């Protein structure tokens, strides 16, 4: 797997890493069940703090894309491909809504109205 970061970008390292991980899952480069290399090694290679990378891992875990288990490492969940699409939809929706000038509270209310 390939990861890259640009410290001079306006996007935070966390967002860059999380975005790339989602992309890898979306493209099938990280298939369901695949075990990720140790965060320590990836962070060392990228020259970023391991906790920054772990933060991105945890974000994807909260999105249901990654599983982190002690002793088993970080793996891509079986439902990841479908979830990745949904997460991407959610991101676009939020981005679009913000462009319209909606506040976070309004965005939440809009979604809840659908549930």
């Amino acid at each position, binding site marked *: 797997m*390939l990861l*890259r*970061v640009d410290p001079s970008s306006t996007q935070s390292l966390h967002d860059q890493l999380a975005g790339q991980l989602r992309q890898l899952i979306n493209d099938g480069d990280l298939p369901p069940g695949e075990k990720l*290399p140790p965060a320590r*090694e990836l962070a060392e*290679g990228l020259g970023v703090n391991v906790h920054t990378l772990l933060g991105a891992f945890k974000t994807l875990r909260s999105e249901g894309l990654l599983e982190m288990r002690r002793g088993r490492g970080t793996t891509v969940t079986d439902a990841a491909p479908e979830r990745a699409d949904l997460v991407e939809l959610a991101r676009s929706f939020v981005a679009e809504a913000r462009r319209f000038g909606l506040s976070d509270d309004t965005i939440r209310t809009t979604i809840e109205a659908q549930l």
Partner: protein
Amino acid sequence: MTEKTARFGLAVVLPVIIAAVGFLPMLLISDLPERFASHFDGSGLPDGSMTLTQLAVTTGVMVTIGLVFCIGVGLWRKPLPALVAPTAAGTGAFVAGMGAAIAATTVIGQRNLTDFNEAELGALTFVSVIASAAVAGLAAGWLAKALPTQADTMPEGATPTMALAEGERAVWVGDQSSALLFGIGALSLAVFVTMAVIGAPWLAVLVVALATVTFLALARVRVRTDGSGLHVVFGGLPWPRTHLAIEDIESASVIDVRPKDWGGWGYRGSLKLLDQAGVIYRAGPGLRVNLRNGKTFVVTIDNPEMGAAILNAEVARLPNQTTPA
């Protein structure tokens, strides 16, 4: 050391030296005893003897067989798989050197004795025989290094690269497993369990346990390329590991690895000793790294294009790079 010099050394110089050391004493020293002590017991006292002729023939056979390999490697026209030349020539020279040293020390050491039973095998003699054999073996191995190997004729592959913005960093990690090593490890585990259950001696069980852990750990190799260079790690073990610093790398390419070029599977060669090394776990795609000092390192791994691209991109943006002649 040119190839020609190495071949001359292996086929002529070293054999002549070894043969001279072994047999000149027999030819030049006059008045040799009828029998020589040829076998010694645990306390260094003789318990067997030979005539001069028998001594010459037995050590002669050792020297001849050993030199056949040494000379053979020197005269072999076609490139041999990596490691085969130094191993064959080195082992041959070692055996020949030992035969010659035994002949020489026996004749020289016992030339003044009237009765072979007075002979003694001193520690010094023993050590000098081993040392001479080792020197001969190492010399042949070192000479054989200069010979071309099949790994030299590996098909050259594409050298991909990528665009890295200023300050941008990239890392690529690839995993590879060896089914063979996993299989051996599983077998070893079964042996361990059986031995533990039937109550085998604990030392033997411990040895098998360590072997099992080793096989299973070596069965997985992880390759990582980034701004610091290439890292090869085996199953999480802290050793052995390979790290090629980016400053030492000239280029990286994708190649099709043929295990027969390397004389087989596993960790082949040695960067320090043989200038070539490879982690060869299967035939197929692999990452080849050419170092600035002319040495080569190869590792079989799937989809090596990205890994090679990162290395080439990072090499290209190192400051103050002097282009090699």
